[in-house]
């Protein structure tokens, strides 16, 4: 199962042209859904208006080199390692799901458009699906706030679940279909394989066609928002937030005499405070 391209065997039933056309339709649905989502929520308009406002209250100009540095830092921290999450469990689950999804989508495209029978690509496709399942089910059963903090049952579905449910069901049905197709040559097994293939297509179509209603588009706007956040720190506008003061600095102590008076010249680390326990008292 892990060594073979499951789409290669499928060509007996469905022509590669149909498979390629399906992938193109899914890509168009994602692009169209994201554009409609942006138009509906006016998120891009809001984002640029906000960026313009931040620019007006900037205290210094950010150079091109700094912008490149910030882009690299955003890529390394927020995009590639999901550094914006406070909870380590959520971060790991997000990384598993994100990389699983990328590997799964890229290898699917390689196998369908490149007619690849490369063992490594087939293995990666399966590994991607397993990573998606691990991250997705972990989030679904244990991490999402409805279950972790609001005592909702794991099977209670809300609109926010379209994305995660269609993600892990896509991966799950893909793995089951691949397993049945690789192992079963008799008629009954082929029937089951067809059923799970149909479920895989239904989940996959839901995932890519529901962009307007799900949070699929977050993968496009989150990096932009993270970059903008770094920009506001670099140009001093800081989204109107107060500065990050070094309490042991003599200038800060002269400016805010309460600090040395009540906290001493070198204030101690006061501990994690509210973050010492996860929020679970909803």
């Amino acid at each position, binding site marked *: 199962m892990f060594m073979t391209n499951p789409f290669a065997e499928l060509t007996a039933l469905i022509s590669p042209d149909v498979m390629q056309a399906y992938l193109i339709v899914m890509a168009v649905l994602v692009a169209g859904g994201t554009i409609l989502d942006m138009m509906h929520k006016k998120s891009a308009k809001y984002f640029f208006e906000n960026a313009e406002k931040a620019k007006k*209250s900037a205290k210094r100009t950010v150079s091109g080199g700094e912008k490149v540095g910030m882009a690299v830092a955003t890529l390394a921290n927020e995009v590639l390692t999901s550094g914006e*999450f406070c909870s380590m469990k959520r971060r790991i689950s997000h990384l598993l799901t994100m990389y699983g999804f990328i590997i799964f989508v890229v290898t699917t495209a390689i196998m369908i458009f490149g007619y690849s029978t490369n063992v490594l690509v087939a293995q990666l496709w399966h590994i991607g699906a397993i990573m998606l399942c691990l991250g997705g089910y972990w989030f679904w059963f244990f991490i999402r706030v409805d279950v972790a903090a609001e005592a909702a049952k794991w099977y209670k579905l*809300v609109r926010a679940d379209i994305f995660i449910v269609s993600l892990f069901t896509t991966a799950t049905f893909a793995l089951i279909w691949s397993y049945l197709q690789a192992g079963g040559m008799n008629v009954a097994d082929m029937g089951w394989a067809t059923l799970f293939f149909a479920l895989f297509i239904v989940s996959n179509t839901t995932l890519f066609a529901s962009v307007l209603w799900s949070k699929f588009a977050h993968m496009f*706007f989150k990096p932009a928002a993270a970059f903008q956040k770094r920009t506001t720190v670099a140009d001093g506008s800081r989204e109107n*937030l*107060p500065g990050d*003061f070094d309490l042991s600095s003599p200038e800060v102590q002269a400016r805010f005499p309460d600090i040395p008076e009540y906290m001493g010249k070198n204030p101690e680390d006061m501990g*994690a405070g*509210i973050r010492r326990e996860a929020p679970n008292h909803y």
Partner: protein
Amino acid sequence: MPTFVYMTRCDGCGQCVDICPSDIMHIDKTLRRAYNIEPNMCWECYSCVKACPHHAIDVRGYADFAPLGSSVRVHRDEEKGTIAWRIKFRNGKKDMELLAPITTKPWGSCIPQLANEAAPADSMRNTELLYNEPKYVAMNDNALMTLESNGLEIKEGVYY
């Protein structure tokens, strides 16, 4: 001045939901991000604004006394033990930063351990005082309680 959430900043961690004394910060059913379900009921206590680790929550002033464009933002840094405010007028003429030690009790340190307390006596049950209520909030037999009559003194400055 009810609170609102910048959805692109929020990661749905639930700190604001946890801390809101009015129980009006909830997780949105579509995007699983926090939002204020009932701005009219907001006390403007700033608890959620201070608790948010991403500064994703801001306060929108009512237009009659806090015209659009002004800004009051806060950063509560518990590791440093400080709270910083930045107040900005909408005409940009005033952009003021304030920094002070946090003077509230540490998180979780004021949970009453009722199981360790002795049960109230009948005389206590029959008074208008609530169980464990400090005696200073009530009238004594002759007059109002005062700091002097109770041998207390106000200390100057910030103290814990």
